[in-house]
């Protein structure tokens, strides 16, 4: 595997904080803390603003892009919605009683999978929002991925469980991936935050962190490469307890795994994970990354929170007001 060389491009400062990032083709969508998703088009290696999608509440916690400019998303209050060209296509209010965390579109673009804190996997028609199947899995579901052939999904939870579900919504298998969960005092910490099927659906990457503490939350980012049946092929820690969680990932067309990890404010990296060892082959320091999308073989987009984002007490802006944080969308070339 060739070691990638990452180089940051001019970042795009966004007007508020974003919780998630999704892409398909030249379309990117970022979900905001304000219940609004922002759309961007990639033109000549530059991101151009392409409108907004409104109608959700709380945080837009997950987005998935379909064919023909279709974007679906869900929020921290259990609502789901889809838009085409920024105009509402359908809306499912209170689809879940609580936080919907992950959305993923089937490879054929026809089915939207949603999972979240109520432990239920929901399959919806992407173009109408109609429910096709519901499968109670249990646990707080934090990761979701369609296989590349579209025949199955992998769903991962807070306590480190992975469930494999057929495209029709029938449970096929489940297994535990150890080390992703810990109870620290009162707090349940950790979770599988990323699931991504690799080339030929022969490997499933599960990533998150090995928790160390609650409260402050220190955790060692970790990736486990699994055979489809759950056998651990490789396991690797991607830093120290200051480096926190692997929060987003994508397989590069050349067969390696791109992962972003984010921990204590100011920390963060984009890793090139070698599928042969599970270890990082190359890395780029990126401040506070939360989302990742690949724009072909030579471009990645990372959603981050601005630097100097933390601080006890009043941190003032240059006008003496109370400073809010914002997200930054950064392009990164891969060579």
């Amino acid at each position, binding site marked *: 595997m060739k070691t990638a060389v990452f180089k940051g491009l001019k970042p795009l400062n966004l007007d508020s904080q974003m919780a998630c990032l999704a892409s398909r083709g030249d379309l990117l969508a970022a979900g905001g803390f304000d219940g609004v998703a922002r759309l961007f088009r990639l033109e000549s290696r530059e991101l151009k603003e392409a409108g907004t999608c409104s109608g959700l509440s709380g945080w837009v916690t997950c987005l998935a892009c379909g064919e023909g400019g279709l974007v679906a998303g869900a929020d921290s209050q259990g609502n789901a919605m889809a838009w085409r060209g920024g105009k509402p296509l359908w809306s499912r209010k209170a689809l879940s009683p609580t936080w919907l965390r992950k959305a993923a579109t089937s490879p054929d673009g026809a089915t939207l999978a949603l999972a979240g804190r109520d432990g239920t996997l929901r399959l919806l028609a992407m173009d109408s929002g109609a429910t096709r199947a519901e499968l109670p899995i249990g646990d707080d579901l934090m990761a979701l991925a369609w296989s590349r052939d579209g025949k199955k999904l992998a769903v991962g939870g807070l306590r480190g469980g992975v469930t494999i579900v057929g495209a029709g919504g029938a449970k096929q298998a489940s297994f535990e991936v150890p080390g992703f969960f810990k109870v620290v*005092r009162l707090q349940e910490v950790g979770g599988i935050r990323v699931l991504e099927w690799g080339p030929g659906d022969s490997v499933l990457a599960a990533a998150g962190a090995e928790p160390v503490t609650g409260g402050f939350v220190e955790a060692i980012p970790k990736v486990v490469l699994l055979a489809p049946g759950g056998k651990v092929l490789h396991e690797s820690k991607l830093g120290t307890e200051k480096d926190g969680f692997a929060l987003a990932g994508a397989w590069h067309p050349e067969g390696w795994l791109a992962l972003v990890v984010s*921990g204590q*404010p100011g920390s963060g990296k984009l890793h090139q994970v070698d599928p042969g060892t599970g270890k990082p082959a190359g890395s780029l320091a990126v401040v506070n990354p939360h989302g990742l999308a690949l724009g072909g073989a030579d471009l990645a987009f990372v959603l981050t929170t601005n630097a100097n*984002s933390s601080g006890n*007490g009043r941190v003032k802006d240059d006008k003496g007001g109370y400073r809010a944080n914002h997200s930054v969308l950064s392009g990164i070339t891969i060579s």
Partner: protein
Amino acid sequence: MNFLSEHRFSRRSWLAGMAAMAGGLARGNTPSDKQLLLIWLDGGLSQLESWDPKPGTRFGGPFRSIPTSVTGIRYSEMLPLTARHADKIAVVRNMSTQDNSHSAGVARIQRGDPKNRGVDYPYLNVAAGRWLGPKAAGMPASMVIKPGNGGFLVSETGFLGARHASLALGDGKPPPLLDRSADITAAEDDARLSLRDTLDRIGAKARGSSLAVANSETYRLAETLRSRRDLFDPSRLDAKSVERYGDWDLGRHILQARGLLEAGVRIVKVISYGWDSHGDHFNGSMSLMPKLDRPLSALLEDLSARGMLDHVLVVVFSEFGRTPRINGHLGRDHWPEAWSVAMAGAGIIPGQAVGETTADGVEVKGQAFDIGHMFHTWFAALGVSTSAVHYEQNGQPLPLAHEGTHAVRALLRRPPEHAK
């Protein structure tokens, strides 16, 4: 009377004296039936995910607010069970305090010290124990239930000295070495205690050490506690109650605290650690808040049903709140500028939210209260007049609560004259 003198007297006579004095201090000149339960959430509870939610605003976070049993008052959806008991609770939403570090805030909030008065004041549980004394004969005035190690918390006593230290039950378990060794008889034990008392008195005279006094009293206290070890044994908690309060340490400890209050312990403080959510705060809230919500709602239900809210003051507090601003680790940092405390019982007017913050939660809107205001208010609720009594330290009178603050009239059924 100099309460800091090294004069030695028996614990029983001292306790009786304190109780009589406290009774005199209480309204109506009758022995006070007031009790205090403090729930200390160490690290800093987020006001935005509890008592003062701001959904739909730039700092509001992902959660909703929900209606409560009081029309017009909304809590975070993180407190669904407690919201049913909002009619028993008074929330103060306009707290604005001084310290944004744990090292300063933990002590200063519990000492009621809005400005550094240059004197090491006792923590609220110790101070209230000092003024109210024991409630039931032989029971300690003040106890603490906390995770980890137990023992006497001398560092909380400030200038009052070690003999006022609260006994902490580590993980709710009986004090270590409580039981008499099987190798010695009761008579031998009495003889040893008597010898120890004598040596402690000699040592206290020679060294002027309040630790010697506290040491001696520890052994006397153990005699009482042995006879009521059912109160200090978490394995004897009723299973149905454990289920209602939650089978985690905060749930078990609040349940145990209720039992201690019922048994006549005057003051109980329950300490919970792990609330300093600088990172992954919102996932943390979804894990932590239910662990508070369930036992707090069960407690309020039980105290109300048993008529105990008439005389038990319950306070839920921390060293500060958490920043409106959400950091790059998806956490909230320390925020003393505008935060909330909650209280119930003992003459606190329930079913209200006193004070308010701006729409984005950044500032207190209008009048702000510091911790000194709360100390005046809580002492008033406990029947201790902060204008009529004071500490004495080496002949110097010291106020119970900061002179620059006052009791909050809106919170008290029977406000003192100085309340505003």
